[in-house]
C-alpha cells in the first residue's frame, strides 16, 4: 500500500468515526425528548463539549502522528478514537459528571500518546534501563499498599491520590512489565531457551544453566505479582500472569509454557478458592449466579438481564436502565452498552477491540527485530487479555475479574495507559524510525 493510499484509508476511517460521534452526541442531546416522548429544548452544553474535545484530540493527534511517523498503521488511530469516543458517550449517559471528567482524561491520554510518539531519537533507553523502569513502576504500585486510596471512598485502595487527581499505578506498571519482558527475553533468548547442554564458554569458564537466566525475570515478575496479590487486585494479577506466559511462549515457541501456565493458573485459582474469600465469591457468583441473585451475584445477574433487555438492536441511547448495574460506567460498561445499543453495538465493540489487537499482532509480525516483535506482541496480548477477561466476565463466560474495558471504561489511568500502549504500537508500526536497529539482536526470528 502506498503512502497516499494509507493516508486516504486513515482519513476515511477517521471521517466514519467522526460521523458516528456526531450521531451519538446528537442522540445524547435528544435523550430527554426521547424519554418524555415529546420535543423538549436541548439542555446543557455537555454533549457539545464532549464532541469538541474529541474532535480537537483526533485532529491534533492525527496531524502530529502523521508528521512524526509518516508510515504508521492507518487503522489504530481511527479505531482507538472511535472506541474512546463511544466510551465518552456511554459514560456521560450513565453519569454525566464522570463523562466530563473522562473527556478531560481523553485530552491527557492524547497528550501521553503524543509524548511517546514525539520523543526525539529512539526509544532504546526504554529497553536499556529496563530494571529502572520496572522498579519505578513497582515502587509506585507498592506505595499504594501504604498510601493507597479509593476515589469512591470505599473498596480496594489501588490508587495514589493528590490534589483531586488519582492514579492507578498498576495501569502503568503493566506496560512497563511488557517492556521489561520484551527487553529481557530478546536479550537472553538463547541462554533461556537453548537446547544445548550447558558446557563452557570459549574461554573455558562454565556456562550457567538456563535456570539462572530465568531468575532475574522471575524475580521482577514475582515482585509485580506479589504486590498485586497483596492488594487483592484479582484482575491485574491474572492479566500479569497471562501476559508473562504468552510472552514466554512468543520468545521460546514452546507450547509447554502455555500448558504449564494454564495448569499453574488453575492451581492458583483452586488455592485462591480455598484461601481467599474474594476468589471464592467470584467463582461462586460465576458458577451459579442464580443461587444468590439479590446478594453476591447481583451485579452479574443484572448484567445478564441488561444484555437480554438489549436484544438485537438495543433499547436506544438513554432509554435503557443500565444504571441498575453497580459500577456500570466502569467494569460493566460492556453490559450497559449491550442494553442500549443491543447485540449489534456489542459486536461492533468486540470487533473494534479485535481490530486493535490484530493490528498490534500484525505490527509484531512486521517488526524488524526481536525486541520489536516481542514488545508489539506483548502489548497486543495485554490488550487482548484485558478486553477478554472483562468482557468474558461481564457475560459470565469466565469468573469476573475487576478490570476496565480498554478505551471504553471510565478511568483516567486506564485510558492513559491504553493510549500509551497505542503510542508504542504506532512507533513500532513505523519501521523507518531510527530507534529499531537490529544490531543488538542475537538472531532474527
Amino acid at each position: 500500500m502506498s503512502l497516499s493510499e494509507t493516508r486516504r484509508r486513515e482519513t476515511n476511517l477517521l471521517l466514519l468515526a467522526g460521523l458516528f460521534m456526531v450521531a451519538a452526541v446528537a442522540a445524547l442531546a435528544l435523550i430527554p425528548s426521547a424519554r418524555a416522548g415529546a420535543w423538549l429544548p436541548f439542555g446543557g452544553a455537555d454533549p457539545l463539549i464532549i464532541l469538541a474535545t474529541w474532535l480537537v484530540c483526533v485532529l491534533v493527534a492525527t496531524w502530529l502522528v502523521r508528521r512524526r511517523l509518516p508510515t504508521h498503521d492507518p487503522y489504530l488511530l481511527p479505531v482507538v478514537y472511535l472506541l474512546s469516543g463511544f466510551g465518552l458517550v456511554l459514560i456521560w449517559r450513565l453519569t454525566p459528571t464522570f463523562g466530563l471528567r473522562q473527556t478531560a482524561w481523553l485530552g491527557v491520554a492524547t497528550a501521553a500518546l503524543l509524548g511517546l510518539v514525539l520523543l526525539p531519537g529512539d526509544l532504546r533507553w526504554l529497553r536499556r534501563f529496563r530494571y529502572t523502569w520496572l522498579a519505578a513502576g513497582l515502587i509506585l504500585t507498592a506505595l499504594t499498599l501504604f498510601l493507597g486510596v479509593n476515589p469512591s471512598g470505599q473498596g480496594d485502595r489501588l490508587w495514589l491520590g493528590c490534589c483531586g487527581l488519582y492514579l492507578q499505578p498498576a495501569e502503568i506498571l503493566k506496560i512497563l512489565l511488557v517492556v521489561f519482558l520484551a527487553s529481557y527475553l530478546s536479550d537472553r533468548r538463547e541462554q533461556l531457551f537453548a537446547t544445548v547442554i550447558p558446557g563452557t564458554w570459549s574461554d573455558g569458564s562454565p556456562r550457567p544453566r538456563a535456570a539462572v537466566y530465568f531468575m532475574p525475570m522471575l524475580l521482577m515478575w514475582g515482585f509485580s505479582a506479589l504486590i498485586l496479590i497483596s492488594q487483592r487486585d484479582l484482575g491485574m494479577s491474572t492479566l500479569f500472569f497471562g501476559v508473562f506466559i504468552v510472552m514466554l511462549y512468543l520468545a521460546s515457541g514452546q507450547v509447554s509454557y502455555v500448558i504449564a501456565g494454564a495448569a499453574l493458573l488453575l492451581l492458583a485459582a483452586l488455592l485462591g478458592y480455598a484461601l481467599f474469600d474474594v476468589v471464592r465469591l467470584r467463582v461462586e457468583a460465576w458458577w451459579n449466579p442464580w443461587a444468590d441473585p439479590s446478594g453476591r451475584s447481583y451485579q452479574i445477574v443484572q448484567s445478564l438481564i441488561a444484555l437480554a433487555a438489549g436484544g438485537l438492536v438495543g433499547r436506544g441511547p438513554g432509554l435503557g436502565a443500565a444504571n441498575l448495574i453497580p459500577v456500570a460506567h466502569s467494569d460493566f460498561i460492556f453490559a450497559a452498552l449491550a442494553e442500549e445499543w443491543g447485540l449489534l453495538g456489542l459486536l461492533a465493540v468486540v470487533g473494534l477491540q479485535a481490530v486493535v489487537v490484530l493490528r498490534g499482532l500484525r505490527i509484531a509480525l512486521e517488526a524488524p527485530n526481536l525486541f520489536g516483535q516481542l514488545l508489539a506482541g506483548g502489548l497486543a496480548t495485554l490488550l487482548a487479555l484485558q478486553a477478554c477477561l472483562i468482557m468474558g466476565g461481564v457475560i459470565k463466560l469466565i469468573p469476573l475479574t475487576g478490570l476496565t474495558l480498554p478505551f471504553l471504561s471510565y478511568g483516567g489511568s486506564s485510558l492513559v495507559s491504553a493510549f500509551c500502549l497505542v503510542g508504542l504500537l504506532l512507533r513500532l508500526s513505523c519501521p523507518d524510525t531510527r530507534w529499531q536497529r537490529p544490531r543488538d539482536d542475537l538472531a532474527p526470528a
Partner: protein
Amino acid sequence: MNQQLKRLTLAVAAAFVAIALAAGYWGFVQRDDLLARADNPRRVLAELRTPRGAVYDRHDQLLAETVGEPGALARNYPYPALASVLGYVSPFYGSAGIEAALDAVLHGDAGIDPVDLFWQTTVLGTPPAGRGVRLTLDLALQRQADVALAAQTGAVVLLDAQTGEILALASHPTFNANVLDDQWEDLVADPAAPLLNRATLALYQPGGALWPLVAAGAAQAGQLDLTTLYAPADQPLRVDDALLGCRVPPRLEVITLRESLHFGCPGPTGALGEALGAPALQRIFAAFHLTTPHALSLPTTAATGAGQAPADDVGVAAIGQGELTITPLHLALAVAALARDGEMPVPQLVLATQDPDGGWRPEAPAGEPVRVLAAAAAAQVRPLLTNGYAATALTGTAGQPLAWFMGFGPQVDARYAVVVLLESGTVEAAAAIGHGLLDAAIAGK
C-alpha cells in the same frame, strides 16, 4: 516467532468469537427467561412513563391506580388493607398478588400482536398503555371484613357459593403497598408474616372444622345417622401426648353426633372416622378438594401427602388433628359445596378485563362446578351448619387453639359461604365476624 504470532492471532480471534457467541446466547437464547425474572425492574420502570392499568372492585370502586406526571408515575392503592390480594409492583422487590397475576393486562401488552408491540415499544418508544382489571371483590364487604378482623391475626373468605366469585378475601396482619419500598426489610423480617396471604397460602390445622365434612362423607357412604348415641358424652381422644376433650362441657351422659359438633366433643367424629376407615377418609378429603390447591388468580397451596402417613391414627385424622392441613379458601369452597347441594364452584377473583380498545371483556370462570357430594348427602349434613358452625383446632405449639367459623346464608336457597379463621381468637369472635358478613352480603343482594 512468526509461527507463534500467527497461532496467537488465531487464539485471540477465537476468544473474541467466543465472547460474541456467549453474548448472543444471553441476548437471544436466554432472553425471555432473563427478562421474566422478578429482579428485572425494567418492566416496572417503564411504568414511570406509561401508566399501568387500574384495578376495580365489582362495583367499579377504585382499588389500585397510577397517578402523577409521565416520567414520575406512581402506583397508588386507595384501600391499602387489600394488599394481600392486590399485591404490589416494585422496581426493587418484584411483583405479587393481582399485580403479578394480571400483569400482562395491567402493563398493557396482553393481546397485542408481537410485531405491533415491537414497533410501538422499541421503534416508536410509545408502548401501549395499561388496561383495567375488575375484581369479583365487593369493597363494602371487604371493608367490613377488614374492620372486623382489625388487629387480630387471621383470615376471612366470603364467596358467592353459586358462582365461586370471591366477595371478600382478608388476611391480617397485612401491609401497605403504598410504602412497600421503605418498609420491605421490616416486612420480610416481621415474625407475624404480613406479606403472607393467610386466606390462600397459610396451611392451618382444621380441627373441628373438618367434622362436618367427615359427616358429609359418611352420609355419602350411607353411614351417617345424626341421632346415634355415643357414650360417654365427653370421651376424650388422645392426640399426641394430650387428651382432647369437649370444647364446651356437655353435662350429658350420652350424646348424638349433632350435639357433639355443638359442644365440640371429638369422640363421635373420631369413632365415625374409625368406622369409615383410612381409605374412605382419604377419599372424602380428596373429594372436598382439600389435598390439592385451588386454581385462582392468586397463588394457592395445599398440604402434600396429607393423611397418607401410616402412623396417622384414623380417629385423629377424622377430627382434623392429623397430617391434613388446609387453607381457609379450601374450607370456604367445601362450605359452598355443602350449601349448594354438593356442587363445588370454581373460585374466581377476576370479573372482567379491559380490551386494547377500552371495552370490558368478562373473564370466563376457570371451570365448571364440580359435584363433590350427592345432593341428598349435602342436604343431610346441611343442618349441622345452620346458623353457622364454630370449632377450634389444636396447633402443634402450646399456644392458643385456632378458632374456625364456617357458615352459609340465606338459610333457604343458600347463596353465600363464609369462613373465618382467627389464629388466637375465640370462636365467638370468629362467629360474630362470619355472621356479620353473611348478613351484610344478604342485605346487599
